[in-house]
């Protein structure tokens, strides 16, 4: 038959992949020796430099080669920020529901918990920084891209309310991809809810320091993160309302590499300071100190 002439014949030899070999009966001990034990080394996500995790941790997860500030999980951030890592957590077991019955949402939430070791994208509570008591909310990008749904909105709002009751300063470290799509309009309304609580706190004269960490976009950027009395950012942290890809599609132009970085945002008047991670605690302490009534001008020398 003519058809046979054009029949496609596979003439390749099939070599089983490494994985097939391994699962196909090989002993665990026979793994290739060049493999590096899990977690010993870490690769900088910006310049690609490979360094010992221990060394990286010593430098607060800042790349020794290019100075890139690697993303931090909320727990690690809290440990680096509060005195002796002592922290009293609020609402630790508050978890999301599935208000829209959105396809695949409950399963995705479970995955996020397993992957990040967190129950939601923000951890709130209180501790002291340089001896000053503060209410602290720290977001984590490794849980659902730090997206804001009901729980993030509620925990942040309650943190603000507690700061109001206790008359403590409020510090929020933000990182977020924006609204939690799976909670639809309810997630959008968390922007109004958190901003409303900040309106009351603002009226009361409460001190609020907002810190942008990489990356902070959409609904979080356009609500509580941008409402600080003081707005700080870590070097290189990208932040904005719309993301680079969407903007490039809209204006049909390539944007510069530094677009929406902390340095870019500072140049455009959106930030007070860009603060290196190693200086964050001392900077926060200084700001807190400025707002504690001490001394008396009339008795000055």
């Amino acid at each position: 038959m003519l058809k046979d002439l054009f029949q496609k014949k596979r003439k390749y030899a099939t070599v089983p992949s490494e994985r097939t070999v391994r699962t196909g009966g090989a002993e665990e001990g026979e793994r290739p020796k060049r493999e590096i034990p899990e977690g010993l080394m870490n690769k900088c996500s910006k310049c690609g430099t490979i360094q010992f995790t221990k060394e990286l941790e010593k430098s607060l997860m800042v790349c020794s080669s290019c100075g890139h500030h690697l993303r931090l999980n909320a727990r690690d951030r809290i440990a680096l920020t509060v005195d002796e890592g002592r922290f009293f957590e609020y609402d630790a077991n508050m978890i999301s529901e599935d208000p829209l019955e959105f396809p695949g949402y409950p399963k995705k939430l479970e995955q996020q918990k397993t992957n990040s070791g967190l129950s939601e994208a923000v951890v709130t509570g209180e501790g002291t920084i340089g001896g000053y008591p503060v209410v602290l909310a720290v977001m984590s990008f490794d849980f659902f891209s730090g997206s804001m749904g009901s729980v993030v909105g509620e925990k942040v709002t309650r943190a603000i309310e507690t700061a109001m009751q206790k008359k403590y300063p409020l510090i929020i470290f933000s990182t977020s991809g924006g609204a939690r799509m799976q909670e639809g309009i309810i997630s959008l309304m968390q922007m109004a809810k958190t901003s409303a609580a900040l309106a009351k706190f603002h009226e009361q004269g409460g001190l609020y320091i907002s810190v942008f960490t990489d990356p902070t976009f959409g609904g979080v950027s356009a609500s509580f993160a941008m409402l600080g009395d003081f707005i700080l950012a870590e070097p290189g942290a990208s932040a904005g309302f719309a993301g680079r890809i969407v903007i490039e599609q809209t204006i049909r132009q390539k944007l510069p590499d530094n677009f929406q970085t902390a340095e870019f945002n500072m140049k455009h008047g959106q930030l007070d300071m860009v603060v290196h991670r190693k200086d964050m605690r001392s900077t926060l302490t200084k700001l807190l100190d400025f707002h504690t009534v001490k001394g008396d001008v009339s008795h000055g020398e």
Partner: protein
Amino acid sequence: MANEMPFETALVEMRKKIDELKQFGSEKGIDFTDEIARLEARYKQLEEEVYTNISPSQKMHLARHQGRPTSLDFIQAIFTDFMELHGDRLFGDDMAIVGGLAKLNGLPVTVIGHQRGKDMKDNIARFFGSPHPEGFRKALRLMQQADKFNRPIITFIDTKGAYPGNTAEERGQSEAIARNLRDMMLLRVPIICVVIGEGGSGGALALGVGNRVIMLENAIYSAISPNGAASILWKDASKADQAAEALKITASDLLRMEIIEEIVPEPRGGAHKDLTSQAEWIKMAIEKQLSELREMSTEQLLEDRYNKFRKIGKFTFDEV
């Protein structure tokens, strides 16, 4: 015919057939009265079927209909003495948001709304109704002026979202939206927000922190555009119809979730079919809500607005 939606095709075809038959009958002098009556009855039935169960994705298309009345159309039809005011006093005048003074049955009010263009040229000037920071700042300036002179505020929401451009970012898009959310909460006058078309994300909410939020029957309000959601979820923006169902963006969904307080019905086939009636019904809803709000003291107004947003959210506690 450009005004018809795809789901109305069957109706349009049938109407055409009936008209043809009528014309044919009168030209040839044949009496088709019975046939025409039968067809008219079927048309009525079909109309009932088409319009009583408009799906979320069909509503999305209705809300975005090019012929749908805009904020300015409703402002002109509902109020008298409209006087447009311009500029944010900081950078410029964003035509994607209009605002000014007007009278509602003689009562001075401040009206503000997103403004889509009527044609391509107008749309380009108005950035298709997607505001830059200066638009949100103009809106807040007018609202704070309303607060000073004790005028109720009526906003009309109709935008795909804040403009996603580099200059908008440079001038502080996030800051402008965030500031509106916070400072609208502090205004000591009644605020009524009407979602007339598409309520898209933060750009919509920046005019949406009201004591009462009401929505037209076929309007939509969402954290993310169904197109955007589809491209994130299924890597396919053409599945917007599917996303529109999943995101629960219709007025009835939002009323059930207690995000809005009232639904204003639309004329059969949508707001664009009858601007006069639509404007009348919106006006009735505004009058009703405003008369309730005007009974409240300043403290009650502020408390009412705060509580409306404070209670939104669904969460539970994991057993430890």
